[in-house]
């Protein structure tokens, strides 16, 4: 097959020709283009296949491979089924291996990586779980106490990727996770940038307006800058406010991985790790290199001794109850964790479990294909008997069987690795943010080697059973001796029941998780999703003049051409967190957990929540703080059985009238509807996490660059920190759910296909063993449908037992999936209908197809089988 640069040139040629032809008819030109393109691709694939098959038939193969190919071509249903199962299970296993390789098997790519550790402090009276919120004061104290242990600190922002680099239209900017590093970072890790590097003075520039120095990972350099070798010295401005400019001073080598728990792609040189520079939105990790020969325990004790010298930060009281309080308080205990375990520790068990599940599926697939080969061996008994009669020895028969199995496995594995590419793309697109493999996830030589070894072992294992049968007593004699009375053996039925039970369990699990995701997708979110949300940071509280400032900003934004409406809501948007309301519930309500969403005039014009009763508060009512709206859930909770419109509530001493009831909204997460009080922004008293909602005219994308410029022109009191289309935020809020659905969906699909093959093989084998019986029955007048009924009935009992026992196991196992369920319970009739139908269809096809084949046999031929 041709390489991708060649294919690219060919696509260019065809595009050039298409444009020429489009002058006459653009539709015909398009048809021509696709015909030509497909023709070239098909030609190239066929040529490749011809080369491979031709190669197998050369003298070294002694014609065996050609005979095998002919034999497989003569039984296309058998060949395709076997290849499909191997392809599916190998595709799944290869994809999983590509992902978990970096987590389980790959060592950290640093020199003497075993010396690298993370120092995690904690208080003697608290758990050591949670982020290592190391205070900058701690870093200084530890460094002074351990002059012989190189030590570095990296500060990583919490949450989702923290910067956007322009790579096209502003709204499509690339989301990048950043980290701040100190001057010892590269030295401690012993990493040399591939291009450029950081000079000592890079770490002295912080806030004098000069761009910050940054190192890029190799992947980011490739993605955002096309691997441009002249990128060093280039100044780039992050697209959102504050518009931080950074100068690219270096590119890290391809093998580099971020030693932080979140996978950072850009590293800013900073002095902000020094005392005094605190952040509520980040935590610091301290990485040390303990030279070989030094005791980890001694280092730990020295750190604990140094902890006592760290004075409490005088501002600690100010930040009581926040992460910052932990950053400012001195610690008194330390643990030392190897860097590899720190980065990947939490993922190891998940990765191991998923990998084990994938291997089980491969094994099951192999066993079932082996069963198919055995069944086919029964059908080809005469062929094998003739070979033996002509003097074929043990080795020849084994080679005969192995050639067939190996051909199936090689083609299936190649197709599986091909299938793994799109599966891997989907997997990477749905991976949770905090999944952090230690190598770039791709189909590389390690993955290819895994597939090759798995294929080789699989081919050998799959040959054992069919070869044993072929080498044992003559299959024809076996068939004869068991012909008249043999029914499915208890072992076969147990095998069918076990496979169906496993398939049923996975089908129920898959249906539960995927169905939950589909249910979430179908949920109305309670607001218009076409808007864009811009997170704001207000430098002074909007008390007194603050409200007017925000109103002035909104006026300014609304004047931007292309903006239809704009409004502010002050709540953590789609971050799985709820903020309480300033509004006091009615006296009859003891406690409530409804969310408060302070809003400015204009918010309803953008968000357009569906009105259930009444109307939206007007701009003047919101400005005066005299009216509010509530969602249905709040109305039902506060005033059960009575109309909510017209009721009054109080907030900060003011009385507000409920003028409208709207549908419940999903501001926390797409999969969580909350009761919301839309209260006037003016009653809030202080700014929390304001978000500017902007809508473009006629549903078009709003001109974000102009809106940001308008915000920037208002002065330093307001800064935009993030820009997110609401659709994107909604999708991100259920990222874990999407990942689980993909994982379970893929495994369930794979399991169903494998169970189907298992049944095909087992029933086909039974049918083949009973060829003579079928022949006798048909000679005595049995009709084909009676023969089909006989064979299917024998399988049906085992299938029913499998479905029932699988169902019971599913009900028990569903408790472990509770976190991923949404509205759908384990007793949901849709779930059981879908899972049972899937199993019955798979089992039906598996039992019916070989039974049908058996019923079409010529009685005369069947009686001559021996």
């Amino acid at each position: 097959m041709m390489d991708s640069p060649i294919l690219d040139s060919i696509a260019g040629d065809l595009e050039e020709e298409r444009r020429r032809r489009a002058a006459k008819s653009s539709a015909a030109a398009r048809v021509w283009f696709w015909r030509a393109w497909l023709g070239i691709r098909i030609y190239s694939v066929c040529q490749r296949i011809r080369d491979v098959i031709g190669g197998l038939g050369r003298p070294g193969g002694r014609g065996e491979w050609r005979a095998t190919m002919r034999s497989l071509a003569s039984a296309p249903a058998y060949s395709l089924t076997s290849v499909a199962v191997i392809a599916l299970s190998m595709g799944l296993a290869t994809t999983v291996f590509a992902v978990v390789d970096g987590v389980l098997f790959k060592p950290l790519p640093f020199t003497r990586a075993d010396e690298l550790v993370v120092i995690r402090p904690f208080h003697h009276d608290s758990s050591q779980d949670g982020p290592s919120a190391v205070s900058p004061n701690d870093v200084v104290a530890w460094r002074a106490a351990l002059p012989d242990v190189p030590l570095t600190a990296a500060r990583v922002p919490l949450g989702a990727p923290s910067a956007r680099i322009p790579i096209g239209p502003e709204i499509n900017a690339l989301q990048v996770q950043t980290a701040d590093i100190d001057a010892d970072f590269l030295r401690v890790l012993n990493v040399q940038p591939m291009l450029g590097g950081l000079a000592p003075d890079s770490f002295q520039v912080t806030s004098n307006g000069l761009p910050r120095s940054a190192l890029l990972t190799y992947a980011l350099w490739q993605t955002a800058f096309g691997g441009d070798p002249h990128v060093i010295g280039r100044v780039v401005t992050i697209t959102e406010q504050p518009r931080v400019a950074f100068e690219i001073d270096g590119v890290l080598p391809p093998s580099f991985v971020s030693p932080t728990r979140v996978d950072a792609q850009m590293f800013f040189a900073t002095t902000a790790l020094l005392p005094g520079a605190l952040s509520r939105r980040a935590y610091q990790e301290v990485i040390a290199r303990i030279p070989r020969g030094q005791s980890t325990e001694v280092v730990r004790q020295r750190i604990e001794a140094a902890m006592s010298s760290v004075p409490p930060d005088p501002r600690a009281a100010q930040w009581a109850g926040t992460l910052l309080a932990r950053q400012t308080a001195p610690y008194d205990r330390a643990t030392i964790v190897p860097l590899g375990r720190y980065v990947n520790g939490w993922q190891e068990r998940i990765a191991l479990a998923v990998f084990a599940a994938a291997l089980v599926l491969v094994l099951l697939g192999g066993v079932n294909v082996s069963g198919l080969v055995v069944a086919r061996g029964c059908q080809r008994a005469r062929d094998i008997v003739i070979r033996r009669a002509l003097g074929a020895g043990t080795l020849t028969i084994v080679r005969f069987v192995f050639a067939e199995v190996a051909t199936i496995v090689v083609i299936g594995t190649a197709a599986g690795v091909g299938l793994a590419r799109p599966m891997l793309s989907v997997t990477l697109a749905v991976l949770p943010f905090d999944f952090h493999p230690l190598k770039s996830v791709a189909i590389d030589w390690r993955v290819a080697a895994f597939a090759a070894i798995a294929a080789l072992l699989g081919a050998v294992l799959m040959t054992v059973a069919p070869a044993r049968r072929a080498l044992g007593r003559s299959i024809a004699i076996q068939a004869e001796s068991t012909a008249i009375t043999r029914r499915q053996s208890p072992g076969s039925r147990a095998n069918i029941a076990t496979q169906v039970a496993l398939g049923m369990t996975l089908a129920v699990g898959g249906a539960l998780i995927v169905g939950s995701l589909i249910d979430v997708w179908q949920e109305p979110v309670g607001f218009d999703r076409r808007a864009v949300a811009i997170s704001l940071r207000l430098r002074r509280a909007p008390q007194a003049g603050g409200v007017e400032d925000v109103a002035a900003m909104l006026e300014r934004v609304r004047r931007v051409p292309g903006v239809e409406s704009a409004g502010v809501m002050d709540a953590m948007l789609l971050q799985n967190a709820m903020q309480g309301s300033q509004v006091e519930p009615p006296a009859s309500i003891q406690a409530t957990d409804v969310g408060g969403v302070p809003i400015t005039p204009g918010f309803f014009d953008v968000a357009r929540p569906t009105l259930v009763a009444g109307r939206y508060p007007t701009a003047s009512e919101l400005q005066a703080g005299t009216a509010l709206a509530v969602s249905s859930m709040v109305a039902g909770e506060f005033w059960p059985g009575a109309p909510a419109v017209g009721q009054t509530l109080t907030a900060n001493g003011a009385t507000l009238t409920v003028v409208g009831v709207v549908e419940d909204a999903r501001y926390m997460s797409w999969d969580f509807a909350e009761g919301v009080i839309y209260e006037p922004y003016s009653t809030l008293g202080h700014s929390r996490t304001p978000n500017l909602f902007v809508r473009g005219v006629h549903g078009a994308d709003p001109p974000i660059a102009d809106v940001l410029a308008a915000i920037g022109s208002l002065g330093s009191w307001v800064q935009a920190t993030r820009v997110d289309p609401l659709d994107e935020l909604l999708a991100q809020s259920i990222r874990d759910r999407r990942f689980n659905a993909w994982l379970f969906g893929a495994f369930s699909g794979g399991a169903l296909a494998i169970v189907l093959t298992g049944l095909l093989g087992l029933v086909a084998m039974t049918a083949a063993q009973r060829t003579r019986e079928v022949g006798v029955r048909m000679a005595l007048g049995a009709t084909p449908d009676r023969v089909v009924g006989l064979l299917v009935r024998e399988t049906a009992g085992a299938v029913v037992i499998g479905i029932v026992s699988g169902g019971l196991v599913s009900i028990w196992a569903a408790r472990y999936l509770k976190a991923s369920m949404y509205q759908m319970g384990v007793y949901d009739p849709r779930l059981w209908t879908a899972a049972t139908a899937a199993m019955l269809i798979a089992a039906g096809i598996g039992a019916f197809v070989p039974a049908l084949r058996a019923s079409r046999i010529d009685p005369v031929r069947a009686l001559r089988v021996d």
Partner: protein
Amino acid sequence: MPGPAAPLGEFEQVILLAVVRTSQNDGEAYGIAVYDELVARTRRRVARGAVYMTLDRLEKKGLLSSYLTEPTTERGGRARRCYRVTRMATAALRESRHTLDRLWEGLELGRS
């Protein structure tokens, strides 16, 4: 990779000659131009895939070399891959021709 003395297949010769002709006429022997020249001169239907695969194979054999032009919008931002025959190809073409000439020398085939 075969040495310079390796005989050329018939289709390989045709492709190499089409590359030479296209280079001499238009200057840039890229896929479509070579294909058009081939069809016009040989007056036979040829699969485009065969042309591209043969160009690729001849390059791997060292009988062609290729270079990329500047990407253009007419080509959807892609570059043209243009081919040139190498010295090895020129020698192989000459040798093929001489072989055929020697075989034809003194032969007169009657009309069948």
